């Protein structure tokens, strides 16, 4: 009796003392996702079970704070409770068709309550090319979380083989998750992929390039991992194009409406019209603007993203998703193509045409939604939105170039509005040097083919304003080439010729014409204008900018030292690296020279590989 009363008291006290766990928000990430009710034809569902032997090797404390998963005053350290919560939420593997067919048994307590979706989307590499069997081949969507008026999508890569993987489609059978006989399609992801995504995406995010971000990496034996990604809206064009290709009007309508509503609810789009037709046309304009802006940005920042008509490797707002084929070149290696065994990728200049064609697909989709009749894509070859795309692309190219020259926002806007012809004329001669390639012709690289660019435009943009302001006269042709030549240029490439000599003079004269146009309306004289440009352009066109090659080397090194690193150390490293690679000319913080060996190694690698791919 006494024991009973004591137990009751203890229970009551326990209840009284129960305070909300600091990690209760994680509980909301449980497989449920609004797409499951809004667009039923857009996913398949899987039960999931706990995946054991995982440990958290990276957690993005800042992102978790932004997403409201941990309190803003949480220390940037992983404690046992937080690690347990992360593993509980994300250390999952699906129970797939193979498991069901083979009646594999799993402990009941390991099976999660809810279903998790693998979304369907169009993928060019699938044989049927209409999306009957393509989509998330090794990912599931963990759910959503709302914070400060923004709903974030969360998905995990490496969570098991779904029937939407290319392997199932090609071999017409289901695969056991982790099946060693197939690599791409076994449902697992590798740790180095995840680390590469962390480092690259944080650098891009810091430089205001929209991108998926990594919330966590859970590491498993054999250098395998589950990479948890987050973004305010993870829908890709291919999620819509799937239904377009299949002429599934209802499903296309559902997912389009779902996307519009999320953009509106998140505040990403303002004043979204209510009337259906206006709403869809608004949507079309928004995606047109996003893809034109992105295509120009990618080209100007030398970001290689294998885009194609399926709209797979990119998000609806032009954000980067899936870093498998993402690179950043140091020079405009516009002939580089990735060798994907059975085919070559697009090159960087073809990205514009692919983006434009994605917009043509959107035009077709919107027309289909408005008329109920699916017309041939060719019908839309002269659609006003393609003209809009071309105009925005060209506008962005001009603005991006002015920014890279070092003009401030006010000066950029002024030149753009009042001296457009001069800007375009300069862009033409800039492009002459940027596009120049080696006489050696096409060569093989470790993963593709290339014809090397021979000039480093970032070098000339960085040095020219300094030299012009000090010398008060333009550089001789040989000097200009000396400043601009890249390490890829051979003697043969640099043999002087009168045409190129004339171009070196034209470049500088047109450059100075832009400077003089700004001087004419400002209180600054030419030397002060050039000086301001010099300080800005030396940051924007940083000598040691990261490339895809350098990220690969950095990841290799991190993999070597990782056993000695805490999860918070990788978080700190990603922060330090993105701060060092922040090219914002207005940034306040001066990165101090790295004290630890890894960061010193990174600095050396980035310098060494700065002109690569």
């Amino acid at each position, binding site marked *: 009796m006494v024991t009973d009363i004591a137990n009751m008291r203890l229970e009551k006290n326990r209840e009284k003392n129960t305070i909300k766990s600091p990690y209760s928000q994680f509980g909301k990430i449980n497989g449920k996702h609004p797409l499951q009710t809004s667009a039923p034809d857009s996913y398949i569902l899987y039960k999931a079970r706990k995946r054991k032997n995982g440990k958290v090797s990276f957690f993005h404390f800042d992102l978790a704070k932004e997403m409201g998963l941990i309190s803003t005053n949480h220390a940037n350290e992983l404690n046992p409770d937080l690690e347990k919560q992360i593993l509980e939420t994300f250390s999952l593997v699906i129970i797939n068709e193979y498991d069901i067919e083979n009646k594999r048994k799993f402990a009941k307590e390991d099976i999660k309550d809810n279903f998790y979706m693998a979304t369907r989307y169009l993928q060019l590499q699938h044989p049927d090319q209409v999306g009957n069997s393509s989509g998330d081949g090794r990912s599931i969507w963990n759910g959503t979380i709302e914070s400060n008026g923004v709903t974030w999508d969360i998905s995990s890569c490496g969570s098991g083989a779904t029937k939407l993987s290319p392997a199932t489609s090609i071999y017409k059978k289901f695969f056991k998750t982790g099946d060693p006989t197939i690599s791409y399609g076994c449902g697992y992801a590798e740790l180095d992929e995840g680390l590469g995504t962390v480092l690259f995406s944080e650098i891009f995010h810091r430089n205001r390039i929209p991108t998926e971000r990594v919330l966590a990496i859970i590491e498993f034996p054999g250098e395998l991992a589950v990479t948890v990604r987050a973004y305010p809206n993870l829908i890709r064009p291919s999620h819509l194009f799937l239904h377009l290709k299949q002429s599934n009007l209802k499903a296309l309508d559902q997912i389009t409406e779902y996307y519009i509503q999320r953009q509106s609810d998140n505040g990403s789009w303002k004043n979204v019209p209510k009337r259906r037709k206006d709403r869809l046309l608004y949507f079309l304009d928004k995606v047109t603007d996003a893809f034109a802006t992105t295509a120009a940005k990618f080209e100007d920042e030398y970001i290689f993203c294998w885009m194609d008509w399926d709209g797979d490797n990119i998000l609806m707002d032009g954000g980067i998703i899936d870093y498998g084929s993402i690179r950043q070149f140091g020079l405009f290696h516009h002939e580089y193509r990735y060798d994907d065994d059975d085919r070559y990728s697009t090159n960087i200049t073809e990205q514009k045409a692919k983006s434009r064609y994605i917009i043509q697909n959107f035009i077709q989709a919107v027309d289909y939604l408005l008329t109920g009749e699916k017309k041939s894509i060719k019908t839309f070859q002269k659609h006003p939105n393609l003209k809009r795309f071309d105009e925005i692309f060209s506008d962005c190219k001009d603005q991006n170039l002015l920014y890279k020259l070092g003009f401030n926002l006010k000066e950029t806007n002024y030149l753009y509005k009042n001296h457009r012809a001069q800007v375009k004329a300069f862009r033409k001669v800039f492009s002459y040097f940027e596009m120049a390639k080696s006489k050696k012709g096409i060569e093989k690289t470790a993963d593709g083919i290339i014809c090397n660019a021979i000039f480093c435009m970032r070098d000339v943009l960085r040095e020219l304003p*300094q030299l012009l302001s*000090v010398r008060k006269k333009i550089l001789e042709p040989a000097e200009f080439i*000396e*400043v601009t*030549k890249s390490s890829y240029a051979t003697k043969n490439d640099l043999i002087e010729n009168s045409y190129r000599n004339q171009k070196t003079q034209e470049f500088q004269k047109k450059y100075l014409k832009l400077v003089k146009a700004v001087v004419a309306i400002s209180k600054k004289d030419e030397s002060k204008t050039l*000086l301001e440009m010099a300080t800005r352009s030396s*940051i924007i066109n940083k000598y040691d900018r990261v490339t895809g090659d350098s990220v690969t080397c950095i990841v290799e090194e991190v993999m070597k030292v990782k056993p000695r690193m805490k999860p918070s150390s990788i978080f700190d490293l990603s922060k330090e690296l993105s701060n060092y690679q922040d090219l914002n000319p207005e940034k306040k913080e*001066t990165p101090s*020279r*790295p004290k630890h060996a890894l960061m010193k190694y990174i600095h050396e690698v980035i310098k060494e590989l700065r002109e690569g791919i």
Partner: protein
Amino acid sequence: MKLVLFSGGFERENKKLNQALVELTGKNNPSITYIPASSYGAEIEFREFVKRFRKFNVTKFLHFAVDVPFDKVIYEEAFKSDAIFLSGGNTFYFLQNLRKKKLLKDLKKFVERGGVLAGLSAGAIIMTPSINTAGFPEFDCDENEDGVMDWKAMGLVDFEFFPHFINSKRYGDEMKSYTELSKYPLYASRDGSGIVIDGKDIKFIGEHYCFLKGACFKL
């Protein structure tokens, strides 16, 4: 010979020294080349450097990083400047790169031609006979991470320089002990202080201590 040795500190503390540097050039708008100790984040330092000297109406600046390959044009232009400023940073790394690129000789010739050479902290130490002062005291020294063996520096002056000096027993004892065997006097300067040399004239701006054969004198 025109030299300015800066200890360190904030811009406002170094106003007089900055002004002295500009005046030594004898020009209203001299050209100044900024040589960072390391290219890591140096473009931001360059921006701040420019801001500091724009207050003296200087508008001609070059940023010349020496731990990366550089082109002939920027190199030649750098040595045509009226003044060259060697920044602060890791003294060993800085010296190693200047030596590797064979720039120490160029800098000496630059000074002989009448150019103004200035250095802050590591940059100032490099102008002295050796970089020994970067290697002690143990509680406040640069890490010789690249294992630089030859600590001989430019030897433009016949004294050693200890920047960021804090007047305390701890520091004082270290300086005394070092100078007991040292050939040269050692000038230890607090942040915001520096030494201006114009030919035979030597001017101490701010707070300095001279250590010689184990003794200390406040200047």
